[in-house]
């Protein structure tokens, strides 16, 4: 049973990685298990300057899900490179940097900054964060902007670029095709769906930002559908995510065509979740008749 999987820039010992924003820069969860176990690590979004993010409350719990509106708080790309990446370099685990911004220039600046470090192996282009006023989600829901930012980042980056798609669109296939045409080496999907919850006592949205991004098992059927559709339309590897909690969930994503997966929200409830999934995955693959991760990819498409 081999869990190995290769994608542009990434030679993974297994297909499981924590999702951006749900693992910080690794330090805290390294208290719970050895980060060498992970296939890769996607770190928290990086912007040009340090960002404070949104006012609190920033999270709310929903049925089988949660809302968040962190608002891209991060120490800025220089801060990340200098203060966070060194810690991660002690591990053999590839690091994927999540690149965010409010303007194309900012995305380009951040992507370029990561050229200067050996601490990251690939970029995840976050054109889909719904929690920032300016920029952010517009890039992920506007085909032309999405293509343009992808193209411009590809032009300057020495790293393979995985574009992270927003599910808040009418036509996910069109978006996927667009960014692949513009040069994306891979896709990462899905980011959160925009949602809201009301505090009945206060008679206003719980989240200070009003809306937040919905994640967790609640959105898994949407992620699965979108990956299924996109897989039939494009020919680049996909990092699948949205509600993964178990090794069975991972297999579901592999079957619809994800080449690797990211686990987000589930880390909060179970800080060991990635480690546990990785240990369980070989048994689950075997139980369903597969002898490698590779073999399972896209196998949910073969029937009429």
């Amino acid at each position, binding site marked *: 049973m081999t869990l190995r999987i290769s994608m542009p820039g990434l030679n993974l010992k297994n297909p499981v990685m924590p999702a951006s924003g749900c693992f910080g820069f690794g330090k*805290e969860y390294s208290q719970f298990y050895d980060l060498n176990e992970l296939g890769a690590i996607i770190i928290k979004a990086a912007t040009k300057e340090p960002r404070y993010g949104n006012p609190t409350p*920033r999270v709310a719990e929903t049925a089988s899900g949660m809302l968040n509106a962190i608002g891209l708080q991060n120490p800025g790309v220089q801060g990340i490179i200098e203060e966070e990446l060194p810690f991660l370099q002690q591990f053999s685990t590839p690091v994927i940097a999540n690149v965010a911004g409010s303007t194309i220039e900012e995305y380009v600046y951040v992507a370029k900054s990561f050229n200067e470090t050996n601490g990251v192996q690939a970029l995840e282009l976050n054109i889909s964060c719904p929690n920032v006023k300016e920029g952010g989600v517009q890039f992920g829901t506007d085909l032309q902007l999405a293509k343009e930012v992808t193209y411009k980042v590809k032009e300057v980056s020495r790293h393979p670029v995985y574009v992270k798609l927003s599910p808040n669109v009418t036509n996910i296939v069109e978006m996927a095709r667009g960014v692949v045409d513009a040069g994306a080496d891979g896709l990462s999907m899905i980011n959160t769906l925009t949602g809201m919850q009301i505090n009945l006592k206060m008679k206003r949205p719980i989240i200070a930002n009003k809306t937040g991004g919905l994640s967790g098992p609640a959105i898994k059927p949407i992620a699965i559908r979108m990956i299924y559709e996109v897989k039939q339309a494009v020919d680049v590897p996909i990092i699948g995510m949205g509600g993964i909690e178990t090794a069975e969930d991972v297999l579901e994503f592999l079957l619809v065509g994800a080449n690797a997966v990211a686990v987000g929200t589930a*880390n909060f409830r179970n*800080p060991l979740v990635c480690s546990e999934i990785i240990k369980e995955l070989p048994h689950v693959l075997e139980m369903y008749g597969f002898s490698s991760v590779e073999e399972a990819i896209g196998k949910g498409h073969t029937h009429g």
Partner: protein
Amino acid sequence: MMERQLLPIIKQSQIAYETFEIVFRTSLAQQLKPGQFVHIALPNHILRRPISVANVNPIENTFTIIFKIFGDGTKMLSTYQVGNTLDVILPCGSHYPIEDLHVRKALIVGGGVGVPPLYYLAKTLKEKGVDVTSILGFQGKEHVFYEEKFQQLGDTHIATNDGSYGVKGFVTDVIKQIEPEFDYYFSCGPTPMLQAVTNVMGDKQGFISLEERMGCGVGTCYACIVPLKSNPEKSLKICKDGPVFAANEVVLG
């Protein structure tokens, strides 16, 4: 080092209106310090619930939490009984830095579910020979808990919003009334109370403990930040840098 443990409940009781006490056994009990919290998972809830450590018994290797029914999660928690286990991350967050302080007289100011962590603190201070005065605020008579336990540690004053027990009014009314002497104050409670308390205290040295809705509870998700007073463009994480802060360190509410 934080751990995730499956902890057996060895005692459970209701101690006031919709207020419950649970005692857990764990190998980590002795590491829990006053002000720290534990992060409790509940079935079918995506997020854990942060609850303060209200007491520790280092000989029995047990610790106590006290919580009030607030919503779905605490309601479910209140149904847990002796023999059940709960999935808990511990120890979480910062503690009252009493080892580093020269305290002789401490003032404890607690409100509602802010009272529990202060009991463990008061007990620890007392054990160190500190003189403790406690001012505790509750909604009403049926909500009062741990009064006697605090009294065993020192002078204790109760205030209730509706005047059904002790002084009618807020903890700040009591502070103004009794003008307690102290070199450090320690406070925990709802944000409006903390604002009132820190206002009344002016330049006095003190520590406060904050609450915020949490995602991870361990410092990775940036859900629980609070702005720094010295530079409101910067922030600290309540789950990791807090929940205990120096009173003048952070911007409240």
